[in-house]
């Protein structure tokens, strides 16, 4: 180990050290001044973000290949840290209002972010496992943060039991892969299998178990059943963070592990991923139609979007399409993060003290009461449907194109048809906001408003001028795929 190794993970080190310090500092922050902790946490994330942006474009391995810093990692780290900043801004007044303002919220948020950062840079299955747990365990606690409210506790325990179940699969999968190839390094696995072609069955079962375990984390059908309940029960600000951060973290691991370690097995896992993606898109969108609660509706919508993102995996299995698919998936993750955080921000603003204000009907007349908010929400809904001129349209366009280029026309067709189905329930929210009359109760909290404006702006700007972000995404390679 030398200093170069440490510099490679400097954002992570800063964040982890700061999270520990914050835990101690918070002990001396008076109970009614917890905003100090929030601001300190935001400063920590900003410092990490600046360091990360300075490292953008560097490609190197650290800690004997345990850590891989490449474009893919840097771009995702940028995404995670930005999501973390927005999550703090959204929670700032929300947890005060819910009466659950405790300083640990921000420390836990930072710890989860550490897990995501580690996930993006993992170059070894051991690190993947550690990152997965570091990401998940603080989130279990955050989901139950509104204790002793029963809904939040139930969400936490459901999330915990199924999350731990999933990590059991991941560990066993890693064990089998270790047995089959004699290593856990992602590049070592490829090299070992290419050299010997031994134990394909063990390797196949192991990679399948990892797919199941990570499938739970990113909530794809048939491993999605926890999602609506957990998203519904967890405090809304946590759900917003979870639906974007945890999902992107899971996909970071999924893409890196499957593309970097198991390219030789793509004939086996590509069809599997294809079917899971198709099922996820279909079921997520169809089940969302029946929902009356906006949190549950957005939960099913997030399941459906996991399906769209997963489509890129079978497409990337084709080496000639891989660059295009990877670029599409990174762009989609950015677009999805911006849009979804915005939509959840509006939900946070509409939520009343005792869990009221969460039915879609409660949004009646929002256009009269808060025209700006209604416009932003309409934009988010259009973007989630995938209509121009929003970032969601561009994201879907590139994903579909990558899938078609990989000759998976039927999968792209499923994507288009389910997008049409999804328009029904997304547009219903717009109809309710603009066509029905009502007097919804909304809150105007400056930080929360700022996140909604910012994400709204992002949704439209990246929808009209996607070029810069797209260029950035196309430079963001998985270092193992560099020819």
């Amino acid at each position: 180990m030398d200093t170069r190794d440490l510099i490679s993970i400097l954002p992570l080190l800063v964040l982890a050290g700061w999270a520990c310090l914050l835990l101690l500092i918070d002990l001396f922050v008076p109970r009614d001044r917890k905003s100090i902790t929030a601001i300190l946490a935001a400063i920590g994330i900003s410092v990490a973000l600046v360091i990360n942006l300075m490292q953008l474009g560097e490609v190197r391995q650290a800690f004997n290949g345990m850590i891989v810093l490449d474009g893919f990692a840097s771009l995702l780290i940028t995404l995670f840290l930005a999501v973390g900043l927005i999550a703090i801004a959204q929670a700032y007044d929300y947890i005060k209002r819910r009466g659950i303002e405790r300083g640990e919220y921000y420390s836990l948020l930072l710890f989860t972010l550490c897990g995501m950062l580690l996930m993006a840079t993992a170059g070894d299955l051991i690190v993947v496992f550690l990152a997965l747990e570091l990401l998940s365990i603080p989130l279990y606690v955050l989901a139950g943060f509104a204790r002793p409210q029963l809904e939040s506790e139930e969400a936490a325990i459901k999330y915990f039991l199924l999350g731990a179940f999933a990590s059991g699969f991941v560990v066993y999968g890693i064990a089998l892969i270790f047995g089959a190839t004699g290593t856990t390094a992602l590049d070592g696995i490829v090299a070992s299998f290419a050299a010997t072609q031994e134990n394909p069955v063990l390797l196949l079962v192991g990679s399948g178990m990892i797919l199941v375990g990570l499938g739970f984390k990113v909530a794809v059908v048939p491993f999605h059943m926890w999602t609506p309940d957990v998203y519904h029960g967890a405090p809304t600000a946590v759900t917003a963070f979870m639906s974007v951060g945890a999902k992107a973290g899971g996909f970071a691991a999924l893409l890196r592990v499957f593309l970097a370690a198991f390219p030789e097995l793509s004939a086996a896992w590509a069809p599997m991923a294809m079917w899971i993606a198709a099922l996820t898109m279909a079921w997520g969108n169809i089940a969302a139609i029946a929902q009356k609660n906006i949190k549950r509706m957005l939960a099913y919508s997030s399941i459906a979007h996991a399906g769209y993102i997963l489509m890129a995996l079978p497409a990337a299995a084709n080496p000639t399409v891989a660059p295009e698919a990877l670029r599409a998936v990174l762009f989609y993750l950015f677009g999805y993060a911006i849009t979804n955080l915005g939509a959840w921000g509006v939900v946070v603003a509409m939520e009343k003290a005792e869990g009221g204000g969460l039915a879609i009907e409660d949004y009646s007349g929002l256009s009269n009461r808060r025209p700006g908010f209604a416009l932003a929400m309409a934009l988010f809904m259009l973007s989630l449907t995938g209509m121009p001129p929003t970032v969601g349209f561009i994201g879907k366009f590139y994903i579909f194109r990558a899938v078609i280029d990989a000759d998976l026309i039927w999968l792209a067709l499923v994507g288009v048809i389910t997008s049409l189905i999804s328009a029904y329930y997304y547009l219903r929210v717009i109809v309710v906001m603009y066509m029905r009359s009502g007097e919804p109760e909304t809150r105007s909290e400056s930080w929360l408003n700022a996140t909604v404006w910012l994400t709204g702006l992002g949704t439209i700007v990246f929808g009209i001028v996607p070029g810069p972000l797209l260029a950035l995404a196309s430079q963001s390679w998985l270092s193992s795929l560099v020819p």
Partner: protein
Amino acid sequence: MNIATDYILALSGVLFVIGVLGVLVRRNAIVIFMSIELMLNSANLALIAFARAMAPAAEALRGHVLVFFVIAVAAAEVAVGLALIVAIFRTKHSIDVDQVSSLQG
């Protein structure tokens, strides 16, 4: 006495399946949790068995290292899990997961 790796792996596989079935069949949160621990530990057993089979190779150490991390992470999960279970028991006076269902809708 030297036990063949296959036997240890078979045991580990059986333990893993018992763990999975336990999670799917039992309704008590603590028992489900114990089953999950069984899954993690069956993976540990497999890792150690594989590491022993390739013993003199330096790569075998990776298996040992992962086992250490799994044990430590499992302890962290126990802490969070027990705390959550105690919290929900205080509110609801039950840890039966079938009764943890006020969110269905």
